[in-house]
């Protein structure tokens, strides 16, 4: 007889609160539903009460982890609306900062994955080593998170030769961490045992539900906005779009692990080819009209839509975050999965919200609640 299992909304163990309603028969999930809204802050309305320049800090606070890419996507869209040409140096600097962000975001994801797989040692090691990226970002931008490095027309802080040297040193120190993560994911690795064959999202279903980013690339589709619709200086930098075919949690992990090497490659190239010049262009005036901008956030495609009425305050800002697109992939992946794997599956898309290690089971017939630990 089917039972309903609630995961969340509170008892947040990791990041954010959200509620999943799973219909379970025996130990197998047969249907899943998602309830959102515990993090709702009315941001799109707030966008229309501030000036373009002030909004950039608001865009940053949509998500504290991929904060930089939000400001970049917003700034690029506004730049198109204002007809600003960003200096070449700023474009390269943007690539460097954004790839550093991808590194810290992917490492954080591995830390959280280790946590949800109960690999405490790996969790501490990954999170500990990740501090190197955070320290570097703090040194470069002035804040560990929400660093507001992008601005309309360019970037706010330059990379001097000393800073470039520090970045190169840190990248060298980070390579062993990526190697360590790869070793966890190889055939006998600790992660492989618990994630292989779990939460499979087949290629066709991934397309149907509109998955983006590493979730889509883990299902065998080479889709990356940095290649498809290059922004900043990505068209001049050489990197590979990582694809894995299995579609399970391990494939998504492998995509991210291999992407950390690509990010390091991009940063090194950008540092080598950094052109001289200004880092910020003069701001312009917004024309009446509308613009759409998209970027590749660590979690996938991020889309901004901005409509301007010619004043200094936008008329409408619409944001489509990658986690929103991937939520439907979670529901797809949960169906047919064993209950104990639910947490790893939910974590696998790197959702911007947390799950829990405890769920309440409601007996569908009697309405009786019982609480179990989700391992």
């Amino acid at each position, binding site marked *: 007889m089917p039972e309903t299992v609630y995961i969340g909304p*509170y008892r947040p163990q990791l990041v954010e609160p959200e509620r999943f309603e799973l219909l379970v028969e025996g130990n197998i999930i047969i249907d899943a539903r998602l309830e959102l809204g515990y993090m709702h802050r009315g941001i799109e309305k707030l966008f229309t009460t501030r000036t373009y320049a002030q909004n950039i800090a608001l865009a940053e*606070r949509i998500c504290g982890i991929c904060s930089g890419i939000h400001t970049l996507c917003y700034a690029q869209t506004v730049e198109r609306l204002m007809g600003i040409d960003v200096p070449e140096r700023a474009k390269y600097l943007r690539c460097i900062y954004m790839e550093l962000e991808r590194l810290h975001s992917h490492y954080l994801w591995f830390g959280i994955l280790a946590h949800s797989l109960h690999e405490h040692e790996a969790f501490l090691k990954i999170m500990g080593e990740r501090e190197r990226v955070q320290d570097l970002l703090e040194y470069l931008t002035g804040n560990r998170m929400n660093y507001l490095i992008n601005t309309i027309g360019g970037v706010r802080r330059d990379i001097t030769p000393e800073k470039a040297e520090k970045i190169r040193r840190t990248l060298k120190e980070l390579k062993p961490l990526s190697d360590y993560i790869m070793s966890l994911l190889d055939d006998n690795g600790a992660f492989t045992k618990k994630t292989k064959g779990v939460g499979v999202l087949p290629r066709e279903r991934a397309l149907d539900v509109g998955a983006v980013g590493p979730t889509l690339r883990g299902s065998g589709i080479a889709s990356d906005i940095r290649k498809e619709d290059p922004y900043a200086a990505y068209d001049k930098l050489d990197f590979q779009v990582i694809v894995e075919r299995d579609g399970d949690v391990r494939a998504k992990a492998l995509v991210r692990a291999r992407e950390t090497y690509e990010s390091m490659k991009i940063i090194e190239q950008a540092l080598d080819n950094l052109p001289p010049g200004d880092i910020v262009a003069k701001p312009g005036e917004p024309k009446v009209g509308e613009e759409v901008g998209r970027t590749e956030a660590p979690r996938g495609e991020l889309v901004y839509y901005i409509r301007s009425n010619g004043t200094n305050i936008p008329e409408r800002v619409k944001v489509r975050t990658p986690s929103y697109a991937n939520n439907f992939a979670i529901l797809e992946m949960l169906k047919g999965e064993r209950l104990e794997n639910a947490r790893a599956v939910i974590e696998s898309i790197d959702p911007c919200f947390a799950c829990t290690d405890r769920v309440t089971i409601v007996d569908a017939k009697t309405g009786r609640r019982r609480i179990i630990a989700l391992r």
Partner: protein
Amino acid sequence: MAKISVYRFLSAGCNGCDVEILECLVPRYKLADLGIEVVERPEEANVLILTGGVNVKGKEELLKTYETINPPKIVIAVGNCALTKEIFDKGYPMVGPPDQIIPVNYYVPGCPPRPQAIVKAVADILGVKIEEKEDYWLAPEGFRGKHEFDREKCMGCGTCAQVCTADAIDVIDGPDKRIVRVNYGHCSFCAVCQDECPTQAIRLTREYHLVTNNRQTTMVSNEVDLLSCSVCGGTFIPEKQIDWALKRITTEKVPAYSEFSNEILSAMKICMVCRRSIKNIREAKRLLTRLSEKVRGF
């Protein structure tokens, strides 16, 4: 106090603070040495760490969680959203800040606070001293921490308040003084005020250890004298701003005007209302004619 078990609760923030709290578990911050553990069920906890400004949906859950945790029920609000809702202050679903809903004992300002700040705050609350030998306890050059006014340079123009991304800066006019006040508990630490200040008077320092038990105290302010209108006697603009503007006109922008400094100054000392009276308009026009004659040479 017995063992400290911390339970984390987040509603309507950006989750940056939550990640930084998670980061505190890393061995280098020595949170474990203080005898603290992070638990995953509220019934096991006796300390609640809050992040986020709490929205409509989170309110009930917050009350429930607070009921569940064990005495002494110490509540620590981490991050500026948990202090004042920060940038989401005017968001329609927001019902916080949390201290409107449950009692909050301590506040840790920051956006997000560094893990170092959170660890130090917890150590302070427990009354333990932590050794800070390593480099990372010191914030790097260019860090955006607590604000500082250069009282000599600040002229009270209020540019910072206009460009502020989080409405954290207030300009309050008294009878003869103007107060420019930064509430760093409401600040997003974006440092746009520092970039835009015409006299480089406001600066974000490397100070990040800002824990407090009263969120009304998270203020940094500067006072400037206001100037009285030479016609009606009411105060309307800071003295220093007039000096700055005059200097800018007569030395930087149009050096040829320097011989009219006194006339320009007396025109500037008339308040907005009095400037519109007939007599003063005539005088202003006369001055403008002389100024344009000087520049154009006729």
